[in-house]
């Protein structure tokens, strides 16, 4: 059974005397128990807002949330805040990009970890302290007993992120949401943290929702990947398929615009033109059309729907690319020739 179902989630920010901004525009996806799902997109695609909505962490004023989010059969969005608080930390947990600002600077690490244990497990005193030390040890913090008494600023960035992970997994949550957990970290530390997250998910059976802008990060870690653009899911796929044959021109464009460490040198990058600001409303057509190399009149009339293209692979494009699997890094096919017979 699906652990998490997100159905047509939309989030609109209605600032005072400003045009409302729709950050998330009908996002739907599901997650199974123990699944590692990647939510990939650039800044402004709505991936972080989605995660905050799942946790019920959006401010209530000036924000309109629509759609449904079911976690283990409970509707999270309509849950009273008391029940939601009980759920957060024990069943749902989240780690953020900036570990320093997510930790309370004036409270020792130990107290911050035991607080979760006390709140959700009713553990106290010696037992809670021992468990906290165990947790720090579990996430690879050396000398945990001493670290418990230290303050966040005494820890390095990687250690802080580990401490946050320890807090997040303290009550063995069923779903862990990681919002850009390694973006602020150096690449060797990033490797350590990704390793830890993957290992935690595998050994504890925790579902992991990995939110990132970095395709490289999800390539090694996630079972399935959702690509977001302008507040909508534009491609859903297993990781192998997504990287082998991305169907949406945006996904293909993203892959073409990051330099690969293992690519032969001198291989030209194929950037996506324009920026995330060059977009049109989904109601008018495909939001990616202004940046797309082969949009047609059809792209500019009506919202494109998610289309199935093979086992577990969906895309939201009228003229998809790479429909023939295996032509992974081939040139983009002529949209008219290939796209005509899709729908």
């Amino acid at each position: 059974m699906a652990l998490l179902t997100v159905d047509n989630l939309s989030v609109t920010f209605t600032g005072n005397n400003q045009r409302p901004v729709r950050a998330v525009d009908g996002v739907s996806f599901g997650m199974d128990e123990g699944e590692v799902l990647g939510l990939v997109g650039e800044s402004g695609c709505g991936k972080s807002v989605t995660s905050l909505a799942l946790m019920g962490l959006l401010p209530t004023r000036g924000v309109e949330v629509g759609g449904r989010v079911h976690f283990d059969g409970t509707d999270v969005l309509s849950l009273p805040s008391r029940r939601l608080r009980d759920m957060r930390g024990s069943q749902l947990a989240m780690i953020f990009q900036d570990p320093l600002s997510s930790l309370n600077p004036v409270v020792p690490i130990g107290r911050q970890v035991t607080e979760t244990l006390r709140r959700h497990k009713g553990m106290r005193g010696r037992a809670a302290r021992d468990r906290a030390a165990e947790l720090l040890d579990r996430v690879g913090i050396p000398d945990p007993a001493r670290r418990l008494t230290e303050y966040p600023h005494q820890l390095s960035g990687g250690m802080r992120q580990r401490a946050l992970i320890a807090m997040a997994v303290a009550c063995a949550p069923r779903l862990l949401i990681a919002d850009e957990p390694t973006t602020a970290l150096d690449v060797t530390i990033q490797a350590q943290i990704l390793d830890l997250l993957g290992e935690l998910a595998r050994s504890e059976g925790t579902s992991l929702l990995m939110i990132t802008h970095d395709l490289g990060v999800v390539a090694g870690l996630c079972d399935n990947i959702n690509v977001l653009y302008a507040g909508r899911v534009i491609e859903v796929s297993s990781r192998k398929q997504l990287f082998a044959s991305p169907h949406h021109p945006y996904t293909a464009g993203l892959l073409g615009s990051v330099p690969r460490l293992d690519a032969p040198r001198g291989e030209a990058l194929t950037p996506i033109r324009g920026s995330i600001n060059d977009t049109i409303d989904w109601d008018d057509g495909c939001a990616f059309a202004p940046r797309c190399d082969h949009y047609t009149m059809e792209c500019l009339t009506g919202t494109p729907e998610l289309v199935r293209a093979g086992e577990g692979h969906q895309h939201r494009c009228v003229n998809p690319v790479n429909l023939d699997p295996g032509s992974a890094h081939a040139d983009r096919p002529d949209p008219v020739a290939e796209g005509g017979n899709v729908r």
Partner: protein
Amino acid sequence: MSVLELEDLKVHFPIRSGVVFDRTVGHVHAVDGVSLSVETGSTYGLVGESGCGKTTLGRAVLRLVDITSGHVRFEGTDLAGLSGEEMRRRRSRLQMVFQDPLGSLDPRQNVESILAEGLEVHGIGQSRADRRTKIVDTLERVGLASNALSRYPHEFSGGQRQRIGIARALVLEPDVIICDEPVSALDVSVQAQVLNLLEELQSAFGLTYLVIAHDLAVVRHISDVIGVMYLGGLVEEAGADELYADPMHPYTKALLSAVPIPDPVVEDAREQILIPGDLPSPSSPPSGCRFHTRCPWRQPERCDTERPELREVAPGHRVACHYAEEIRAGELRSRSADVAAGTPPPA
């Protein structure tokens, strides 16, 4: 011929304390004896993690920070020995592109005055109209329309702002441009635009780049020669292909294996060299080899006490490791059992 040469460059920042009288209680060894040379018309990529001193090194070349000792030779002239005014005048030849495209542009200036400022202070261009022609030409070169002239930085997207930053450097017709993390603040889809633009401009104007970045994939893509920095010192330097194919320093190996590759097939097959722990503080660097506290191949005695010199192991390939050859030959076993010593990550 090398246009830029650094010789034993050191930048130490004093750590001050005291309320009334400043007392120097120690030094941060940001850059600690780096020697390298950049060939005319080529790109030298300097890679390293935060705190390794790469940004300070870039700024020291332009004398934006005080050089503690050593030499920076630009076309034979030692910049470290120039007076402030002489250095200032030389700045039109050596330019810089910054990491944060918004922060490095004065929010109160429109694009025209941002680009005109450099021309004015170096007395380039006869008249306002003359300068404007030059500015419009440059804007066009970096892919901005002339209607950008009267607009302000906050009205542009990140990629466009970085183009403005590049145009500001380019309009002075410099020989060398130091790019400090030129794309790391940009969205993924926009990074490629800026990287392509930098390459295009290089071939059009014969520019020499010193690219400073933490992203090894970016550096490898754009550079001819790559230098890897760790804790203020260069640990390895080689041609971009050579460094990737045959990394010899343990830190380089770890760095290469840590960079995620957007390809599941490659990722699954890769063996990772996870180096434990964190970067030691640059104010009290470890004795001997700076990397010995985290090195999986550390040998007793020598690594802890003797600082390895950067030595040439093959033409154009320099490494600062006592046991580079032994590690490559597989004669030394790494401490972590899951590391296959010496084999480069599969391509």
